[in-house]
């Protein structure tokens, strides 16, 4: 089996938001919709304080609360672990958005553009099916599928890899098949200590955070 998963190496991330911007380009998301974004967190008190940058978005959980609550079955899970939204089924009730513990889901009720009127580039990317429904990170599933069809390896070949991972200037983001022990992802997970966000909720995210070498 294949289980697509993403890794954010918190040791490397600098919070530059390049992935945020690249995602917006690749997915033509409207203003203020950020399927990928990077948090700027502080832990501790002055002077014993640490600051960390934490990429977040849809965690593509193995047990996704958003999918269970969805009344229309618009949210589903592919065999490879990617959680999808069928824009043609979704009624836009936003139940998934409040069920998601990662605030990864967005709903835009009206078309919106950077400067009011749509620029030519926004007209190109505009998808009326996305209005009034839930949207979120897709792990760039189209790109993965197209790449796979051409015999490429997601996470290795840029044309088969999510845009955020491709764009990362700190090489903090990685993508690959967690079920394949030989994959880049599996090796990083084997070599490093990691956690998943809100693990106690039992959602089994497909998104891992590295924080130190295994010692």
């Amino acid at each position, binding site marked *: 089996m294949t289980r697509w998963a993403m890794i954010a190496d918190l*040791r490397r991330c600098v919070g530059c938001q390049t992935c945020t911007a690249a995602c917006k380009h690749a997915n033509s998301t409207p203003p203020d919709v950020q399927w990928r974004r990077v948090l700027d967190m502080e832990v501790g008190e002055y002077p014993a304080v640490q600051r960390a940058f934490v990429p977040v978005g849809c965690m593509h959980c193995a047990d996704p609360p958003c999918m269970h609550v969805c*009344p229309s079955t618009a949210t589903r899970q592919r065999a490879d672990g990617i959680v999808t939204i069928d824009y043609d089924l979704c009624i836009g009730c936003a139940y998934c958005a409040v069920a998601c513990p990662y605030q990864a889901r967005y709903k835009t009720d009206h078309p919106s553009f950077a400067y009011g009127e749509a620029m030519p580039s926004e007209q190109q990317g505009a998808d009326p099916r996305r209005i009034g429904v839930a949207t979120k990170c897709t792990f760039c599933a189209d790109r993965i599928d197209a790449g796979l069809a051409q015999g490429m390896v997601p996470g290795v070949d840029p044309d088969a890899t999510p845009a955020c991972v491709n764009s990362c200037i700190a090489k903090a983001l990685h993508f690959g098949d967690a079920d394949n022990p030989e994959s880049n992802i599996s090796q990083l997970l084997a070599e490093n200590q990691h956690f998943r966000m809100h693990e106690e909720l039992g959602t089994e995210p497909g998104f891992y955070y590295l924080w130190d070498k295994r010692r």
Partner: protein
Amino acid sequence: MSYGPKPWMQTHWDLRAAMNFILGGTGTGLLLAAVLAAPPAWRWVLAAGMALIAAGLGAVWLETGRKLRAINVLFNARTSWMTREAYVAVVVFALGLAALALGRAPLAQAAALAALGFVYCQGRILFAAKGIPAWRTKGVVALIVATALAEGGGLFVAAAAWALGEPPTLWLVVFALALIARAAAWSRYRSRLGAGAARLTLEPSGRILVYAGTATPLALLAIGLLLPALAPGADFLAGLAALAAGWRLKFVLVRRAAYNQGFSLPQLPVRGGH
């Protein structure tokens, strides 16, 4: 948008969604009260209850992004409590309308039972929302069900006091029991709600629920029993107080205390130096 990492208020469900919980619960309570009502009043109570539930569902429908696809809400009975709520609502209305049309009290009683299921679904809807700690807290289902009974009872008693002057004692006893059950459900829910912004936000409404929404109505009911001359006014006020306290709590629960979990790091990254 620059949310997080600290918990922030959910923005997806606004007053329209809150109205579904507020009116749906009270409507359910009324449907149950209709069982107690003598003919022909039960028809009015039943109709009022269904109207409230319908208004609540209408409000939340207005919030959906794709209104013409509302039927899709029925597609996931396997896991979604929202789908189940919708199905049960259909049953409530089918039975209720049949009861009204045929004038058969047993059908109304069946509708009331279905409405109990409806409000249970509402409680489960909140409980299944893992993104909102105040909703996913155990005890929220009991609280939602109990407050529905208390609100419906309150509205029923107030209406009865208005219309009849002095509602039958049985009704008042049932209402009093509903009040006590709600206070107990709140207390249980509150004890399970961890410390944090949600609890801080809910606390004042909880106090109002206990004092103005429970103790005061109970006292007013007692006054009505002891001093029958004051009963119409006391019972009327008791009913409204119970109703208002319940509405307020649910509004706050959906719109003011619905903080998400934010983000937190169980481990901090090692930034070199090893």
